[in-house]
């Protein structure tokens, strides 16, 4: 097994053109076995990192790729089978790079190493930096050849940033791309399906397809509340128009989380990890294919859910009463998991191309799928707008942090869209403990420099939020309606008079940041890739800080929800919005009307809730009854805890 692992890692790093099939240790099933089983096994293995290190899993993606190739377009499960006899296609050998100095061949990630020179950018000149024996080659000669006052600018650029950004942006390897697409189905959380129905007034009916994704991520062993009682998940939603880059940014954020576990200076480890992710062993949104025709089609349908594997939320919150923080130090935190929801873009089904991957996937063979009719008219019979509204209200209700991704150069348009999105949902959930944090991400920002300098996030935030000459609801009917309704119901000092007030009504806090454009053609450079990488990193930190702040707010208001409670809340949220057009009362959804106490303090608080909540205030008899009952409870506790030594004094 050791040699197998070694060989495969070597294959990942240096791309030795050896067929991995030759070292398959797994006995494959006969052709009649349903391919679905293997997919499920892949998904199960992916949930369990311990098993993931076994040699079996190292080869499962290869099998899955075989399944995909052998599978006809007929979606019946039995028609997909594992074919062990089919030869694996050899990966295309990496194109060598030619040194502009000595003309020798070299590679980025294997000897002889070549590097681009920052002093020669943006021309694609490569120079051999080190030979196979580790000796310096023609690089010193190249540097000496430069003019003395320019030598300091001639520095070897690191290829790792280019590699990481390329891995995030698109997948050139068709095998890995197909594999990512096939495995992405396991990340589905919920979606709305519209089917024609002549009996319905709108001519169609809608169903909510709900997968057990949350349980698989947060309680894979299905222990109920035994192991997950002290786990408090935080939801972070990625929303935006179709093709805005939500999935790409989320992929980058998840990849950065993965990199927490390795030393970034260890290039081989980083590349191995990224390759593992690309092979489908770490679940993240599917990248775009290298096909430029595909650049505007949506990649996500419905809502997909991913769990962060980084060191997020590893710091104990100051007011948390939990004393066991040993789990959270230096390892991915199971206590405060970050869950990223990748939401279908606005108007996604309108933009859905005819040749999308959906027809290939058969939803019927998912064991954890529940199909529930959407009976509320505004969602079920509202066409695509109804679907978008359903997503907006559900995502707003459950998210702690909302990340809005846009590529629109007109910032005012973007702001209007996100505020419309929030205003359509804000009055549909109330009694919530904390408002949401909004992070606006401008993707592929080209004008990063106004005076030759990169714009800081603060400058960008100022540009987004405060540089509008007009009020944002002036040209938006939805916002105007919301503002008018709001102003009628509140005191004069609470009325929305300017944009700042509108922001504060809809969101607890708003942050803005941008991801620079990587560039096209000759503009692609390692320096540019590093800039993009740094912005991804900054965005991740921003998201982590926002999530931590929301958790802090929840902790201070006794509104933390552990996994069992969150399971119940999600069930309530889906059921409510599926059947009801009215607002969702979070007090009821979180069982605030009938909490389950865990200790004596909570039992007494529950007792106070019932006694003081049901009687008229200031009733002296009730106050005295409470005092007597609590004193008696303390006496009983003393008796029970000092059993046999019933002496108080």
């Amino acid at each position, binding site marked *: 097994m050791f040699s197998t692992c070694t060989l495969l890692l070597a294959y990942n790093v240096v791309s030795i053109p050896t067929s991995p099939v030759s070292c398959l240790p797994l006995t494959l099933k006969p052709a009649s076995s349903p391919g679905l089983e293997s997919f499920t096994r892949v998904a199960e293995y992916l949930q369990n990192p311990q098993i993931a290190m076994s040699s079996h899993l190292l080869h499962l993606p290869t099998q899955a790729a075989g399944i995909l190739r052998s599978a006809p377009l007929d979606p019946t499960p039995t028609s997909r089978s594992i074919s062990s006899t089919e030869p694996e296609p050899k990966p295309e050998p990496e194109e060598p790079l030619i040194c502009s100095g000595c003309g020798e061949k070299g590679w980025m990630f294997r000897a002889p190493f070549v590097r681009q020179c920052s002093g020669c950018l943006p021309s694609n000149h490569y120079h051999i930096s080190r030979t196979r024996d580790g000796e310096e080659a023609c690089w010193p000669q190249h540097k000496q050849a430069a003019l003395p006052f320019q030598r300091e600018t001639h520095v070897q650029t690191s290829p790792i940033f280019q590699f990481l950004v390329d891995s995030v942006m698109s997948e050139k390897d068709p095998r890995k791309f197909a594999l990512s697409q096939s495995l992405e189905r396991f990340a589905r959380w919920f979606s709305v399906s519209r089917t024609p129905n002549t009996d319905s007034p709108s001519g169609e009916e809608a169903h909510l397809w709900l997968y057990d994704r949350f349980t698989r991520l947060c309680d894979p062993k299905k222990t109920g509340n035994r192991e997950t009682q002290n786990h408090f998940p935080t939801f972070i939603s990625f929303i935006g128009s179709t093709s805005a880059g939500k999935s790409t940014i989320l992929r980058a954020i998840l990849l950065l989380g993965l990199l927490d576990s390795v030393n970034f200076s260890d290039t081989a480890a980083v590349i191995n990890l990224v390759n593992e992710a690309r092979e489908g062993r770490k679940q993240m949104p599917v990248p775009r294919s290298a096909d430029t025709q595909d650049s505007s089609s949506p990649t996500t349908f419905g809502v997909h859910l991913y769990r962060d594997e980084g060191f997020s939320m590893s710091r104990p919150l100051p007011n948390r009463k939990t004393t066991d923080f040993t789990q959270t130090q230096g390892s991915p935190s199971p206590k405060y998991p970050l869950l990223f929801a990748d939401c279908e873009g606005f108007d996604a089904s309108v933009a859905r191309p005819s040749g999308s991957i959906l027809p290939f996937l058969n939803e019927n063979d998912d064991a954890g799928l529940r199909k529930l009719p959407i009976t509320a008219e505004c969602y079920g019979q509202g066409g695509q707008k109804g679907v978008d509204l359903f997503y907006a209200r559900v995502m707003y209700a459950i998210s702690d942090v909302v990340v809005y991704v846009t590529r629109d150069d007109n910032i005012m348009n973007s702001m209007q869209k996100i505020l419309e999105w929030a205003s359509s949902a804000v009055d549909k959930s109330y009694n919530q403990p904390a408002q949401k944090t909004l992070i606006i991400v401008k993707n592929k920002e080209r004008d990063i420099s106004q005076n030759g300098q990169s714009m800081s996030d603060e400058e960008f935030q100022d540009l987004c939020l405060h540089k509008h000459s007009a009020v944002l609801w002036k040209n938006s009917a939805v916002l105007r309606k919301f503002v008018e309704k709001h102003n009628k*119901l509140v005191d004069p000092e609470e009325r929305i008079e300017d944009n700042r007030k509108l922001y504060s009504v809809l969101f607890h806090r708003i942050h803005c940041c941008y991801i620079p454009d990587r560039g096209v053609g000759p503009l692609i450079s390692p320096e540019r890739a590093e800039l993009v990488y740094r912005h991804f990193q900054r965005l991740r930190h921003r998201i982590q800080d926002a999530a931590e702040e929301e958790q802090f707010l929840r902790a201070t208001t006794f509104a933390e929800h552990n996994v069992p409670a969150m399971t119940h809340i999600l069930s309530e949220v889906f059921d409510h919005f599926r059947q009801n057009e009215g607002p969702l009362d979070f007090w009821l959804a979180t069982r605030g009307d009938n*909490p389950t106490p865990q200790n004596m303090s909570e*039992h007494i608080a529950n*007792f106070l809730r019932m006694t003081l909540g049901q009687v008229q205030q200031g009733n002296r008899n009730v106050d005295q009854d409470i005092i007597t*009952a609590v004193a008696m409870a303390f006496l009983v506790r003393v008796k029970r805890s000092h059993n046999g030594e019933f002496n108080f004094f």
Partner: protein
Amino acid sequence: MFDREMLPFWSDAMDMYLLKYDRCLYHWFPGRGLDKVLCTIRGRAQHKMHIGDSATRFQAGEFSGKSWTEVEKKGWIDKIRNCFVDMCHQVFPVEGQDSPDQLLLGLRYATHAEVRATLCRMHSNKTCFACLQAVPDHVLPCGHALCPTCIQEMAKPSRFVECAFDVPSCVICGKHNIHQIQLKPKCAGVRILTLDGGGIRGIVELALLSRIQQEVGIEVNIRELFDLVVGTSTGTSRIPIRAT
């Protein structure tokens, strides 16, 4: 002892009640001819403004409810402490008197009778009102529920059935309903009987159960040996047969 061991429970409970459960009593009229709107916010920590039954129906304003100043909180603590000390003096053994357990039992009955007017109107399946320490498992005919420990402490052990307790009247509301509660034996784990289906072949399971009952030989119905009995198909029809 009170300040060291009990006060933290009360302080935490009070904070939790005020921040999480206390209800704002504010109400307003949104317009002429419109119904009164009540603030629905529970918990002072979550109260930023008055919110009605929809997030768009709100008004600015502070939490409106019973005031809980530090002085008032301290007053409550003093009262509970004094009450606790009085109870301790009543229960503390004096030579020639009953044992503390019996005195405590008598005091519990007396105290519950004293606060009956408040407690009898409330029902909870999450908090045992007899001890305020555990989730109650056993519901009496009147609707009040007790935890197993309170049943063991306050009810009378059955003379005829092992691990059973007779509850002549509800400890909380005082209603007379003779009720027997069977508790799990101390050494028992979770006992579940599952019965398969299989049509006429189900008779084999019936014979087996009958034989088990004979072998146990202590005149106990086999249903008493299990906490949960489940079955599929024919198995479901055998549950009542053996259980009666």
